[in-house]
């Protein structure tokens, strides 16, 4: 395990300009009884991925509120991360036949990490399956252990879930991102939505000239409508389906399509999906397939802000925070009704949901024809994110959980 130091910090008061001084005062009020009390967050990576992104923001804010919070990252060899990656995919429903040795590897690294870490905080929050086994090493007098599961457990591989299920009931509580993802468990289960940081590079306001510069760099015309999907090149994000929907829209509107995701060079499946998208896009210079560097938050931010409509046509989804990112930027969104997306897109209120290529195309055409409706949906979508999916709300939920668990029974 290694304790993570976070170099760049945004003071809590800076969020007043976004959420209002009353909301910040409320966080301070709620945190008062928790000042000085120990919290440990444990996950499996310090960089990359949504969990690290959230902890990077959450931990310093909790620290500023006077909570004695630490963020620890589990260490392991390649064999451990191969096993946990396979577990992760299997819990999402991918076919997988685990060998007994896989479980042994998981147990061995859990034990190694348990020996290196102080596990005696009043509140210990374990993120995702990788460190879930640490519950076996819970000191007798340590208080509250919480398992925060960020993944969709609605259709897990039974062998992997049965293994995990030997650990999870020993926690005091579990947290899921959607009621759909929850399991029948003997412990209380809570709903926490994932969150975006409105002041991060990916979401903060950008100067218009920077946005134009990014468009010019990628050969995108800012004078014609831009449809955008931001997500890695993954079949579950259905990039080819997005291209098919765009081709239908093109019969009615002179628009462009941007599909932007992380580089697929070190991901064999990603490279294959990118290739499929390239074939589907062939012959249309208005389709831009952009392989962004691994971490290009400002470019993603600029592309989302430049978009006329943002699409998220996933076939399956965890929560799909790119939807919240787009809504935060007051963009009308057309998205599939899968995973956590309907929580963010309340149909006809904060965006439009679709269930097929044709449906997606129709909703995009409808919004291009009715910009005033698109604007109204986008405005409400922004309010929805402000109220429910910002990092400050996430912090408030953790404070509330700690207060509830820490109350004398």
């Amino acid at each position, binding site marked *: 395990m290694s304790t993570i130091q976070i170099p760049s910090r945004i003071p809590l008061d800076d969020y007043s300009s976004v959420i209002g001084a009353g909301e910040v005062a409320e966080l301070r*009020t709620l945190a008062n009884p928790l000042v000085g009390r120990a919290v440990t967050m444990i996950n499996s990576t310090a960089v990359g991925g949504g969990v690290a992104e959230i902890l990077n923001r959450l931990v310093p804010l909790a620290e500023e509120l006077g909570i004695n919070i630490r963020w620890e990252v589990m260490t392991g060899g390649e064999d451990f991360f191969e096993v946990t990656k396979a577990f992760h995919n299997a819990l999402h429903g991918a076919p997988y036949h685990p060998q007994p040795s896989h479980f042994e590897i998981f147990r061995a690294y859990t034990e190694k990490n348990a020996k290196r870490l102080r596990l005696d905080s009043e509140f210990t929050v374990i993120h995702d399956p990788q460190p879930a086994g640490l519950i076996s090493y819970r000191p007798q007098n340590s208080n509250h252990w919480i398992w925060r599961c960020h993944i969709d457990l609605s259709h897990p591989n039974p062998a992997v879930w049965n293994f995990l299920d030997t650990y999870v009931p020993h926690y005091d509580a579990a947290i899921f991102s959607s009621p759909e993802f929850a399991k029948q468990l003997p412990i209380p289960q809570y*709903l926490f939505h994932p969150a975006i940081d409105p002041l991060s590079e990916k979401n903060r306001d950008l100067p218009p000239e920077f946005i134009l510069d990014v468009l010019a760099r990628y050969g995108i015309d800012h004078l014609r409508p831009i449809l955008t999907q931001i997500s890695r090149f993954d079949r579950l994000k259905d990039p080819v389906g997005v291209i098919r929907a765009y081709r239908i829209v093109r019969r009615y509107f002179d628009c462009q399509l941007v599909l932007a995701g992380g580089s697929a060079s070190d991901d064999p499946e990603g490279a294959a999906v990118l290739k499929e998208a390239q074939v589907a896009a062939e012959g249309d210079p208005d389709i831009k397939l952009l392989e962004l560097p691994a971490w290009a938050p400002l470019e993603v931010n600029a592309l989302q802000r430049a978009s006329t409509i943002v699409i998220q046509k996933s076939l399956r989804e965890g929560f799909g925070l790119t939807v919240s990112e787009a809504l935060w930027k007051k963009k009308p969104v057309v998205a599939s009704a899968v995973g956590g997306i309907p929580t963010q897109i*309340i*149909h006809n*209120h904060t965006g439009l949901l679709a269930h097929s290529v044709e449906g997606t195309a129709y909703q995009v055409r409808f919004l291009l024809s009715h910009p005033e409706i698109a604007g109204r949906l986008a405005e409400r979508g922004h309010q929805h994110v402000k109220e429910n999916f910002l990092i400050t709300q996430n912090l*408030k939920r953790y*404070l*509330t959980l700690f*207060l*509830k668990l820490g109350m004398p029974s």
Partner: protein
Amino acid sequence: MNSAETPFEFFTVAYLTRIGNQSAGNLEELLAGLEQCSDASIFHHTFQTLSSHHFLTEGFSNDFAQWALAEANRDALAEQFAALDIRDYTSIAALRADLCRVLRDFIAAFPQFTRQEALDRFYFCESLEVTAPFALQAATLNEFRDGVASISHASFHFHFVTSRLRLQLRTNDFSHWLADSLGLTSLADTINRIDIYTNTLDTARSKMLRLVDRERRKHEHDSDPQPNSAR
């Protein structure tokens, strides 16, 4: 201007959403859920959801209405659910009884829809409440105005909407205090009539502040020395 003997104490509130073990895929299961779920669950899907979706001022009322419309495709039922105004209720038991009555009436009228599967299931959740005093009190109308202007959405909703369940009265904390402690019954009544369904929490608060300001001006005017008497 009057100073109250009992000051208004502002509280803040936070809710934890607990995922229940019940879900419903059709109207029959929804009715079973409505009959059996906890009071905290009824509260969550009516009072609490109005707070977290306060910015939706057209056609969003409670989770049951939204599910009936968007997932079960039963517009008429959605309208009936949406027509239940939580301000009419001072107990969860009465609200639950009316939710069940609406659904039973619909099922009796349209039995063919009772077991028709919805697009997505309804998941019963519960709200667990944590309250904390804000270290903010008001004894005068001016202090009250400053307090209302500075509190969070959750705190405003707590005092203005969910207070009915606590007070067991068809009023809210603000109106109750204005009438009882400052004797401003007319202001209290007008504030109590602000529509929480067609206003966001922000616009409801703005309306309330405008009403308070008008009352303050009236008092300032009343206490101004008359030109004639000054001579």
